[in-house]
């Protein structure tokens, strides 16, 4: 028993083209994950594709000769035929990147999806001739009866791929694209976890060059930003943490750090996603024990010789994923707070290059060339600008992309990451060197396009209007496009890194330094970081005895003393600063205090603060009599009401005795 074509079409409609997308461009991005999610909506327990196939077969034979024709004959238009269109798109999502045989590849995938054979004649799957018209009908239906509330379907034409382009163009990221994104995910994991705009990050990553042609075309189409963002986010959510190499094999990402001191370079390897040390075999020598980050192991520099002919990988003795230790002829390292780490491309900051690429080693690097022992043909070059590197090693820098070109650019704002991510509430300003005023158009996170004003020659254009709204923004002005993101949360890296060590003379005048630098001098004494002082101070602190009541309090000490305490007046400086009056206040010398009698006119009460017997002196007994009826509140004193009652009874007995006498 299958769910039925009608149920499938409805579920896929809600899954892929939900309402509340008015004004946005959408695609019918059906892939295996979307199909499974739609299947869940209608309670399909087994393989969703199998169920959908059976649902179509119930409408008519689904075989090599008739293909999609019987189903299309029964499902005459949108949204009923959506399940058929989704199967066509699903086939495209499974395609290989072989663009030279796109048609052939598509029909093979479609036949696999439908579980039928291919015909000898064109089209290879019957019924495909009707598919372009069905997509156009779907677009009309979304515009017409649905009044655009599910968005505007993106349709495009292709001069050669007339029949299959409609479903292919709906797939923004094919399976191979999603697999190739592994390297991008690995390098941007932290940013993606923080919710940074995945599209903005991908546009800035060299990995974008490795995607298939259709995906790269989609990246350039501004109107597909929303669907692309969702596709990349979905792919990241489904990412298994591995990378796909050039041969299509999977590998585990590794972190490579370059160490350097004059005359000596080191390569230090660790596994950021591993939980324990792994024993791995390299191209030669004994096996290497590679620990999880932040511990590291030394990689033999001699292995660079192997990297000359391609990536160097480490393999476990048995089953398990490989680890890519060296990525090839050129390794780039970027500086951060913790050292020189391998990066995927050069951005705004200069990088350090370890290379044997003749294109680079033949350069005139002069003093930037490090003097250290490396395998023949390898060079270590410091302070290399992105412009000195080939295109595939460059990140799309803020200067090139987000900050604009020579005529229009962004400046100011509270930048958090590489001047492309700004703190919400403090966006950058648009500046320009234009001869005449230009309209500023803004495309915000909701993908609504609006004109927000005019950029006047020589004057900055403030973007205060979007100050408080986090999200990804694109500004278009005078043909230039500027992209940036407003976020509420930054990386928060390096908090507490620097501290003062005032008790060590050599360090006292150094100001704040990091722990690694301090270790060299074996510091002793206090370490001050902000208000926190380690190595001194807090051990002797005992919380003072406090009350919140803004009333006179009579404190009964264990020795039978009664002290009258009054809340202090608010200090002048606190009033001046606007600090509210009230709040808990201290009972002086409260170390031996047992009872606190709060002489509040409205709510007189007794606070039990210590489990101690009290000397029944006359002042104590008088006070007990006065507060005989008051409620007793215990501050962790067991049996406090009973203890107070006992004191009150003594007081009354004493009173009777005195009266009798």
């Amino acid at each position, binding site marked *: 028993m299958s769910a039925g074509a009608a149920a499938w079409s409805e579920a896929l409609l809600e899954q892929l083209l939900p309402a509340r997308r008015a004004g946005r461009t959408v695609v019918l991005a059906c892939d295996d994950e979307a199909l499974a999610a739609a299947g869940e909506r209608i309670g399909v327990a087994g393989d969703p594709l199998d169920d959908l196939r059976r649902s179509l077969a119930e409408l008519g034979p689904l075989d090599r000769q008739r293909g999609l024709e019987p189903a299309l004959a029964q499902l005459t238009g949108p949204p009923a035929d959506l399940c058929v269109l989704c199967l066509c798109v699903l086939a495209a999502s499974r395609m290989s990147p072989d663009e030279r045989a796109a048609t052939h590849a598509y029909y093979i995938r479609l036949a696999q999806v439908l579980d039928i054979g291919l015909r000898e004649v064109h089209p290879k799957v019957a019924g495909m001739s009707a598919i372009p018209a069905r997509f156009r009908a779907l677009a009309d239906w979304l515009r017409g009866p649905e009044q655009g509330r599910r968005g505007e379907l993106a349709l495009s034409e292709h001069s050669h791929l007339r029949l299959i382009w409609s479903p292919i163009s709906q797939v923004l990221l094919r399976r191979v694209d999603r697999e190739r994104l592994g390297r991008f995910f690995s390098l941007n994991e932290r940013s993606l976890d923080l919710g940074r705009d995945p599209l903005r990050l991908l546009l800035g990553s060299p990995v974008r060059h490795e995607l298939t042609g259709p995906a790269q075309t989609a990246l350039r189409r501004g109107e597909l930003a929303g669907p692309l963002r969702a596709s990349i986010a979905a792919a990241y959510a489904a990412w298994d943490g591995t990378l796909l190499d050039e041969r299509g094999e999977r590998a585990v990402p590794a972190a490579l750090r370059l160490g350097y001191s004059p005359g000596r370079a080191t390569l230090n390897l660790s596994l950021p996603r591993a939980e324990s040390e792994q024993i791995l075999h390299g191209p030669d020598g004994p096996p290497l024990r590679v620990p999880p980050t932040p511990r590291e192991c030394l990689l033999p520099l001699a292995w660079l010789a192997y990297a000359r002919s391609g990536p160097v990988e480490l393999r476990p003795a048995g089953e398990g994923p490989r680890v890519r230790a060296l990525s090839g002829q050129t390794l780039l390292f970027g500086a951060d707070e913790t050292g020189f780490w391998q990066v995927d491309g050069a951005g705004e900051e200069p990088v350090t290059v370890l290379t044997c690429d003749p294109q680079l080693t033949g350069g005139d690097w002069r003093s930037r060339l490090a003097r250290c022992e490396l395998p023949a043909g390898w060079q270590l070059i410091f302070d290399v600008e992105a412009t000195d590197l080939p295109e595939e090693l460059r990140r799309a820098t803020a200067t090139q992309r987000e900050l604009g070109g020579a005529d229009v650019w962004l400046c100011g704002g509270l930048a958090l990451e590489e001047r492309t991510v700004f703190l919400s509430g403090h966006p950058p300003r648009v500046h320009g060197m234009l001869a005449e005023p230009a309209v500023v158009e803004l495309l915000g996170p909701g993908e609504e396009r609006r004109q927000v004003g005019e950029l006047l020659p020589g004057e900055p254009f403030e973007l205060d209007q979007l100050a408080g709204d986090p999200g990804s923004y694109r500004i278009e002005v005078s043909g230039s496009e500027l992209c940036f993101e407003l976020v509420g949360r930054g990386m928060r890296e390096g*908090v507490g890194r620097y501290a003062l060590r005032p008790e060590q003379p050599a360090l006292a005048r150094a100001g704040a330094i990091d722990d690694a630098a301090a270790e060299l001098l074996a510091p002793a004494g206090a370490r001050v970081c902000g208000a926190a002082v380690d190595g001194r101070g807090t051990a002797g602190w005992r919380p003072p005895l406090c009350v919140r009541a803004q009333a006179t309090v009579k404190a009964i000490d264990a020795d039978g003393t009664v002290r009258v305490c009054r809340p202090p007046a608010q200090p002048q400086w606190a009033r001046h600063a606007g600090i509210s009056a009230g709040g*808990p206040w201290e009972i002086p010398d409260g170390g031996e205090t047992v009872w606190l009698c709060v002489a509040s006119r409205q709510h007189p009460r007794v606070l039990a603060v210590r489990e101690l017997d009290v000397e029944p002196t006359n002042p104590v007994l008088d006070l007990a009599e006065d507060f005989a009826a008051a409620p007793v509140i215990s501050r962790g004193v067991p049996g406090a009401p009973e203890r107070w009652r006992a004191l009150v009874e003594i007081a009354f007995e004493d009173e009777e005795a005195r009266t009798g006498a």
Partner: protein
Amino acid sequence: MPRPEAQQAAHDALLRWVSELGSGSWQQFREACDHLQLVPSVALRGLSVLGHAEISWRSRRFACAPATLTTIPLMPGRLLLCGQRGSDGLAEIARVAAESEIDVDLEGEGSHQFGLGPRTVLVDAEPDQAADFAATAGLRFAPQAAEAIAASLPAVGFPVSVEPGAPDERFPRCPLDPDMLEPCWDAPGNGSYEDGLWSWEGFQGRRSFLRRDGEWFHIPIREHGPYLIERPPGAPELMRYDLANRLMYVNAHAPLPELHARAACLCSGRLPLRQHYAADHAEDQYVNVSPTVAEAIATSLRAGEP
């Protein structure tokens, strides 16, 4: 927005940015201050003396300090929040306070600093529950931070405050008037150097040097300078303490070194207020400074008196 309110908002935004960034370069800090229209050196000193951030001048980088709760003298039920205060910081503390069984209140959005630094944020809590609350809210608890810092202050003087080093003759310099502690660009000169304090306009800002017995010494922490020289009788005193009102007055031309100022500021969570007495004489007034802290500061600074 009137100027003090705008300044206050700018300082609060700067702390939020520092907290979200975590750490960064002096160049980034200057750009942020430029955007917020704040003076970078003043803003940074404010963050430092309030225990919000540390700067490493050797690497020209700053780092936010971890969020820390500390106690304030004479206000036992009020805890001062120092250090990291990100976008969701106060809301998160308020949420923890609301959900916690510990009796805790957050004092609104904090008290203004008259546009001189980030707001003072106080948390109302029973002192004996403060440590538990801090742990629940993911904060450090450092009671009596002012006293602890004061107890660790170095003895200002030789060798703590100076390092051998001659100034660069290519840059302009002038002696400092030992009386008023102001640079004397119009001082008569014959090409030789008198003993005393010298100010040097360097490539990366102003530097202080001490010349003693014909020898040059660099003073890495410039604020130590006035406490290393002999001053003429009758010169305005560098600091004084009003025990009755718990006020510490510091000559504005000889501001406290940052760590000393932090000890004084953490007695209240307040930046000092400047009192102008004459065109060339002003004092910074630190409030609620406990006698212990005042004594420790004075002892540390007077150690260097010749």
